[in-house]
């Protein structure tokens, strides 16, 4: 490891604090692209509207991909639409994130079997960072997904790739299975 590499390592005090400030800025102002596809788009709109008010977190939809950091794929992606989704993704400036909202964009949802014209999961065409299940997900679930994106950004930094950050996030999460089992035990007892 060279001297320069060492300076830019994770433990460096200076770099990490700069990192955390920059990460704070990025996670505090996630501008999603106002990109509605189907049913989930209505829930996304409801999340933006007065009752759930995403602007509390500084999340503020932009209609141009050039000015957005986050793509919320809200709804069913069809074959006809898939290429447009890819193009919109490519138009977004780095660093960019993708949140797949709803079962349809996660895996095809209720259309997985006979939906000849439905893309079975948007991750077949663009990389997805966070999946939010539900059909459609409740606004709380979407906010939860956005919080996950924020956590992911927190894990990132100089010299840490997105894949590493995702791994770190997964490690930080822990396995939910013991907790579930414990809850079950308590319920039965």
């Amino acid at each position, binding site marked *: 490891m060279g001297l320069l590499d060492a300076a830019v390592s994770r433990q460096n005090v200076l770099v990490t604090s700069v990192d955390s400030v920059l990460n704070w800025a990025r996670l505090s102002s996630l501008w999603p692209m106002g990109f509605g596809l189907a049913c989930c788009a209505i829930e996304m709109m409801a999340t933006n509207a007065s009752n759930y008010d995403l602007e509390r977190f*500084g999340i503020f939809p932009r209609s141009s991909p*050039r000015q957005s950091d986050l793509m919320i794929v809200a709804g069913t992606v069809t074959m006809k639409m898939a290429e447009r989704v890819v193009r919109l993704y490519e138009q977004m400036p780095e660093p960019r994130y993708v949140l797949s909202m709803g079962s349809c964009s996660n895996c095809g949802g209720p259309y997985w079997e006979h939906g000849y014209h439905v893309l079975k999961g948007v991750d077949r065409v663009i990389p997805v960072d966070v999946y939010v299940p539900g059909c459609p997900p409740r606004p709380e679930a979407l906010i939860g997904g956005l919080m996950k994106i924020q956590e992911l950004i927190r894990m990132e930094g100089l010299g840490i790739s997105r894949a590493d950050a995702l791994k770190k996030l997964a490690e930080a999460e822990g396995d939910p299975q013991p907790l579930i089992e414990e809850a079950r035990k308590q319920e039965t007892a």
Partner: protein
Amino acid sequence: MGNSLNAWSDALAAFQPAGFPLGLLIIAVIPLVFIAVYALTYGVYGERKISAFMQDRLGPMEVGKWGILQTLADILKLLQKEDIVPTSADKFLFVIGPGVLFVGSFLAFAVIPFGPAFIGASLNVGLFFAIGIVALEVVGILAAGWGSNNKWSLYGAVRSVAQIVSYEIPAAIALLCGAMMAGTLDMQQINILQSGTYGFAHFFLFQSPIAWLPFLIYFIASLAEVNRAPFDIPEAESELVAGYFTEYSGMKFAVIFLAEYGSMFMVSAIISIVFLGGWNSPLPNIGAFALNDMTTGPVWGAFWIISKGFFFIFVQMWLRWTLPRLRVDQLMYLCWKVLTPFAFVSFVLTAIWEIYVP
């Protein structure tokens, strides 16, 4: 009053340690810092909070206490974003566009008196300069819109140019009424003419009944000049995606944003200088309570002009979150068939008033 006029700015300008014009630099930096601070605090954050209040929401809450760091985070994030220049764009125009836009809105601050003792450049044609330099924004917008090589941007730019150039005419004529009442184009002089112990009664708006007409005309025209609702057709989100800055990302977008809020304050400051006394205190002396004297001074002056400007910005935001947007031809109709004739009428009436009524 005449003695202390421009005292601070003169002193600063004379401050040249080792022949280096540090004082001038400071004078130049003050408006820049002001724009930045204002845009960060009142401009963007205030707009978000005000709109949230009007819409039964909370607005930014999580970023800092009550979300006050929201705009700072936005700017810091935009700095980190990838700076995309589309391959098919005209690189030179695309890059220069936001710069020209920013310079246009920033240069006019040179002639704005921020108090009885401070003005960047005490030009004797200050008002004329301010009107002229704001028109420079048109060049920036057109460069941005054309250079983006995007159809939506082009539409936004062309609409914007048509709109700003048209609305210059009623705006300029309305300001001319104010200048006629003052008999000068010097901003500082216009302010001095509106000072007196009766406070607001000396403002041009209250000095003649006709002054209301150019005041309203200028206010409406200024909304159009800075592309605010209901005249925000150049960036009409539901029609043109994001108008002339559709293709801009990262810091260039932030600069456009900053310039926009800069010119919002610009027009608000001009309207308060010409019609509402600028840095003069609106409070009158009432007998023993010399309120006017108490609230006059260099710092009070800055306070008054900024708060008057902020009031007009608040009205702009209020309108923005209430009214739908006009159509292109209706906008032009309003300009050429309503505002311009009325501006001329008010021009003539003001002239008659100035000649025949003492």
